[in-house]
C-alpha cells in the first residue's frame, strides 16, 4: 500500500480553487516531487499532507490514516521543513532541536544524543551553543532539516527546501537529502527548480493552476514532453528572420528525406530553440542559415516544464 495516496484532492479558499482534484501516490522510500510555478497549488497540497489544512474535497490517506480525523497521530510520524524558516532565533542551535523534540514528548536523554547526531549530520556541531539569528541562510535551512528529523519521521515533507540559498548551500542541502534517501527516508518535496527536481526526485508531478499536468520520473518526462537535445541558435540579427530560415531548413526535401530534423521551433528574444533528437546533424546543416553562435545541450526538465506550463509569468 502507498504511504500517501490522494484521489480527487481539492482545496478551495472561498471561491478560489488552489488544488483542483489531483490524484497521486507516494511509495515508501521514494523521493516524490511537486514541481510547478508559484501559485500552482504545491504548498496548499503540502499543507494538506502535513495535516494542518483540511481538504475541501476528495480523499487523502497518509500511512492509511485520514488526516482530518487522525491528524495528530499522522503528524507524530512526519517531519516538516516549511518554506519559511520558523526556527527560534533567540534560542541556541541545540535548544531549537531540543524544544522541538519535546513537542513529540521525546525524553530528554534521547534528545541529547539525537541532537548531537543530527548536528553532526547537518555539519553544525561547532555552532551547537550559538544563537540561530546570525547563522547563514544555508545553515538555518540545514538546522530546520535537522529539526524535522528529531522525531525520526517516516516521511520528510520539504516545501521548497533550497529556495533563496546560494549555489554552494544548495549543493550541501542536496547532498544531505541524498544521504537521507539512501537511508530509506521517504521524502515529499516541492520545488520550482528543475535541477533540484532532476537531482533529487525519483518521481514527480508537474502542477499548473491547481492541476497535475504530467507525471513520471525526470527521464520519462523529458522523453515524453521534450526531445533528446535542444539546439540553441543565437543571432545578432532579426530572430524572426532566422527562425523562418530554420523552419525552411526543416521543410527542405533533403531534411525530410532523413526523417524529421526537429520537432519544434521556439522563438525567444535573442535566440531560437530547436527541439531535436539529432542535434549534431542539425548543426551540420546550419551553415546555410546566418547565425552568431550555436549550442547543443541535453534536454532538461526545464524544457518540459516550460513546454507544459508556458513561458508567461504566473503571479
Amino acid at each position, binding site marked *: 500500500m502507498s504511504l500517501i495516496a490522494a484521489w480527487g484532492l481539492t482545496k478551495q479558499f472561498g471561491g478560489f480553487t488552489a488544488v483542483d482534484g489531483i490524484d497521486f501516490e507516494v511509495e515508501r522510500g521514494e523521493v516524490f516531487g511537486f514541481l510547478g510555478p508559484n501559485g500552482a497549488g504545491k504548498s496548499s497540497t503540502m499543507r494538506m499532507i*502535513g495535516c494542518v489544512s483540511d481538504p475541501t474535497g476528495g480523499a487523502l490517506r497518509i500511512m492509511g490514516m485520514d488526516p482530518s480525523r487522525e491528524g495528530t497521530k499522522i503528524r507524530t510520524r512526519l517531519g516538516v521543513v516549511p518554506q519559511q524558516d*520558523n526556527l527560534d532565533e533567540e534560542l541556541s542551535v541545540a535548544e531549537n532541536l531540543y524544544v522541538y523534540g519535546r*513537542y513529540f514528548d521525546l525524553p530528554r536523554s534521547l534528545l541529547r544524543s539525537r541532537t548531537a547526531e543530527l548536528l553532526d549530520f547537518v555539519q553544525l556541531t561547532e555552532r551547537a551553543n550559538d544563537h540561530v539569528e546570525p547563522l547563514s541562510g544555508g545553515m538555518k535551512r540545514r538546522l530546520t532539516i535537522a529539526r524535522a528529523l528529531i522525531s525520526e519521521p517516516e516521511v520528510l515533507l520539504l516545501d521548497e527546501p533550497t529556495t533563496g540559498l546560494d549555489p554552494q548551500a544548495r549543493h550541501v542541502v542536496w547532498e544531505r537529502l541524498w544521504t537521507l534517501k539512501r537511508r530509506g527516508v521517504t521524502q515529499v518535496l516541492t520545488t520550482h527548480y528543475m535541477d533540484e527536481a532532476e537531482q533529487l526526485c525519483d518521481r514527480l508531478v508537474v502542477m499548473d493552476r491547481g492541476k497535475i499536468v504530467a507525471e513520471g520520473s525526470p527521464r520519462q518526462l523529458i522523453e515524453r514532453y521534450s526531445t533528446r537535445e535542444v539546439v540553441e541558435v543565437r543571432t545578432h540579427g532579426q530572430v524572426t528572420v532566422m527562425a523562418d530560415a530554420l523552419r525552411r531548413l526543416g521543410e527542405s526535401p533533403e531534411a525530410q528525406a532523413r526523417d524529421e530534423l526537429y520537432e519544434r521551433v521556439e522563438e525567444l528574444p535573442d535566440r531560437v530553440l530547436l527541439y531535436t533528437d539529432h542535434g549534431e546533424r542539425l548543426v551540420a546543416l546550419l551553415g546555410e542559415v546566418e547565425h552568431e553562435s550555436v549550442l547543443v545541450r541535453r534536454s532538461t526538465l526545464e524544457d518540459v516544464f516550460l513546454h507544459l506550463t508556458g513561458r508567461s509569468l504566473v503571479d
Partner: protein
Amino acid sequence: MAPAAVIPRPKLAVEYWLLTYRRNWKGSLLTSFLSPILFLAAMGLGLGSLVDAEVGSGRDLGGLDYLDFLAPGLLAGNAMMLAVNESTYPVLGGFKWYRTYMAMAASPLRGRDILLGHFTYMAFRVTLASFVFLGVMAAFGAVSSPLAVLAPICAALCGMAFATPTAAFVATRINADNFSTYTRFVIMPMFLFSGIFYPVSQLPVVLEQIAWLTPVWHGVRLCRALSTGSGVSWELAGHLAYLVALILVGTLLAGKSYTRRLYE
C-alpha cells in the same frame, strides 16, 4: 516500527515558553521589581502624603491610608498591563513574525495545546510578577492582612481576563496596526478609571457604572479586600466568578480564532 502515539499536552508547549523565559528572566524580574517601586514611591508616598493630609479623605478611602488603598489597586492594574503586553505582540509574532505557533502546529501538538500552552505561560508570568509586586508592597508596609498572599492569584486572574480575549482578537489581525490604539484607548482608560487611584464612587454615575463592567475593577476590589483585610465578604465570590467567566469566554473565542488562523 511506528513510534508510540504521543499524548499531546499543553505542557509540552509551555516548555517552549519557559525555555525562552529562561533566556531573559533576569531582565523581566528586574522590571517586575522596579515598576512597583517607582509607582509606590511616587504615588503612594509622594501623592499619598498630600491625600492623607486632606481632612476627611480617609473616610472616602474606606478608612485606609492612600498607600494601602493604592497598592493593591496597582497590583491588579499592573497584572492587566503585563497580560495585555504578553497577549498582543507575542501572539501575533507566533503567527506571523517568529511563526512559533506554525512550527508547533506541524508537530503532534493540536491547536488547543498551542493555545493553552501559551495561556498557561502568560498566567505564570503574570502570577510571578504579581508575587514580586506583593513583596514590594510588603516592603513599603502596604500590606495589612495575611490574606494578601492570595491577592497575586486574583491579580493574575484579572490579567488573564484581559489576556484571553485580547489574544482571541490579535489572532484575527494581519498586522499590529491597531495595537497601540487598543492600549491607549481601551486599556489605559481602564487603568485610570477603574478604582485603582480613587474609589469609582468619585466618578459621575454613568462612568461609575461603566467601571463596574470592567474586569480590572473586579480585580482591584478583590486585591484590595485581600491585602487590607477589610471588606472580605461574599461580594468577593461575585468578583471572582466574573473574572473566571471572562477567562472562559476569552479562551473559547481564542480557540476559534486560533483554529482559523493555524489551519486556514
